[in-house]
């Protein structure tokens, strides 16, 4: 019972992080039809920018996180505007552009910061305890920020003109464009928003976990799994799937062990995808 509850708490913490990552990933696909292989790269970059801001520039942690968000969002928006934009309808080309960017980012981080994990710790320490149950405060903070970010994104997408425009572009670019929405402006913004989310997650989570130039590899895999499960392009799907992935990872790892847990996660996703080729929430409409 104790393990069951503990695994549940861990599952929620994992799910919140995964949700934030998957949201950005799915947003890019939903709106631009682009698979962002560089998503993990932006996560690692966010971590390093925050780390550099704290250790080099001496910024307080919240400002460092902000700096990471701004930097990753700006890089994402510029990369979209000047490179991806030109080939946005060629899915193979955009995959190659983002895969190339990922290789460049991780090599760049390796060259600048070296291969070892730097000393980068979360400013809030301590653990809440209730009997044998526990919740590290840092996880609580991350959970709160993730929830707030997800909420804000939700409002942005469903309650603002910007969000309406993005959704219209996601639904049917041609119609939306004829109605005066400008992909040339909105696409970079959407891309930057998504990479900013990855940077935010990286800045928040890497001080709790580990920061290294290859920190983005597992992130990419998790994002893949989450959005496959949730249905590419579906915002609700990304959140629900992230929670499912978090819980499956937590429970499978606790009860079956690390390797088996990972295998179960992969196979679950594969089976769901084969049964429902568009994921749990994916629509049949977008053929992509």
């Amino acid at each position, binding site marked *: 019972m104790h393990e069951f509850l503990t695994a549940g708490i861990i599952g929620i913490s994992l799910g919140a992080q995964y949700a934030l990552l998957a949201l950005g990933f799915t947003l890019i*696909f939903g709106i631009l039809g682009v698979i962002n292989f560089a998503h993990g790269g932006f996560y690692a970059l966010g971590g390093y920018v925050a780390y550099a801001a704290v250790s080099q520039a001496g910024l307080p942690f919240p400002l460092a996180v902000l700096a990471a968000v701004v930097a990753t969002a700006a890089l994402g928006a510029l990369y979209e505007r000047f490179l991806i934009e030109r080939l946005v309808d060629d899915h*193979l080309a955009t995959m*190659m552009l983002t895969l190339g960017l990922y290789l460049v980012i991780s*090599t760049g981080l390796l060259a600048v910061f070296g291969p070892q994990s730097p000393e980068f710790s979360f400013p809030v320490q301590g653990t809440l305890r209730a009997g044998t149950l526990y919740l590290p405060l840092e996880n609580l903070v991350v959970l709160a920020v993730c929830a707030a970010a997800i909420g804000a994104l939700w409002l942005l997408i469903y309650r603002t003109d910007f969000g309406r425009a993005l959704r219209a572009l996601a639904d049917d670019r041609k119609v939306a464009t004829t109605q005066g929405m400008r992909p040339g402006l909105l696409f970079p913004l959407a891309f930057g928003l998504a990479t900013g989310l990855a940077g935010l997650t990286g800045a928040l989570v890497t001080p709790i976990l580990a920061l290294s130039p290859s920190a983005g*590899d597992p992130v990419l895999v998790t994002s893949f799994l989450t959005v496959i499960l949730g249905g590419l392009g579906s915002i609700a799907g990304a959140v629900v799937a992230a929670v499912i992935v978090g819980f499956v990872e937590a429970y499978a790892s606790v009860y079956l062990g690390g390797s088996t847990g*990972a*295998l179960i996660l*992969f196979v679950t996703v594969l089976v769901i995808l*084969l049964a429902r080729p568009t994921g749990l929430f994916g629509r049949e409409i977008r053929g992509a």
Partner: protein
Amino acid sequence: MEARSPSRWGAQEWAAVAMFLAVLAVPWATDDLLVQSIVNRVLIGAMAALSVFIMLRMDLLSFATPAFMALGGYAAVLLTMHGVTEVLLIVPASFLVPALVALPLGALVLRLRGVYFVLVTFVLTEILQLVLFMTPRLTGGADGLAGFPAPTLLGTELSDARSVLALAAAMALLAAVITAALTAHFRQHFAAIEENEVLAESLGLVVWRYKAMGFVVAAGIAGMAGFSLGNMLLTVHPTSFGAQQAVDTIVYAIIGGRGSILGPIAGASLLVTVSDFLGNQGQYAQGLFGLLLILVTLVARGGIAGAVAALARRLRAPRAAAGPAAAAPEAARGGA
């Protein structure tokens, strides 16, 4: 089945096969271990990239090449460990085992379009790693399999450096012949699927049949590459068949050029050699690959092979004679 198509081998198919024929002579032409080592790795990289190339002919990007390489490699090595060392048996086995696995698998994953297919092939490679780790009795688990007997050709052991390279060249030649035969024979079908799958289907083309055929053959060729790798390293090891290798083979095919069978060969030749010469700066190879990938995607969609072909065409046809329509279609084919 369709009536036999008039698709014949073009200059590129013949050139690819001729190149590998020429490589067959390398083991006897030089004793330089470095040259032999690089050539051997180029051959393996080219085979793997050919597998990616076949899928790209149908606009499918596959990250599953290492998974099929592993299937072929482990199958062949397990055969040698059980006393079957004849290459005339184990090379076909290294093709057939992954091909047979690809058949039912293809029925499942080929229903997925575009990006879903990409993501699933990525997941397949991850799953294979876990399966290897979890079957130590059969596959040696994390340790891989080593110390297996050398393959034999009609009783002669192929264990010295020269025969290892010759075997690699022979397998690469076979892979090139199979790839050329498949992609030339179904050139129109593959091109139609690549350019407009929905239209092809609505005109009556049984798209899944060609995709399945391509998938199965690509898996088989990857399997041969896997065995060739195992034979060079004298070990099959899970670290040889991970996501990193998937990225590398895709990079070879794309940078070399996905429009021609010469592309993956050119890409593997160049990039394997470059990473070798980077020596102790090996970490920068990935960054270089990334930059090249971006560059090729933006400015030279046909990759190296496409760029060379365009250049040759420009040199051959003097400016005056080149009508606007004469050169354009072929050149554009490289990218698209």
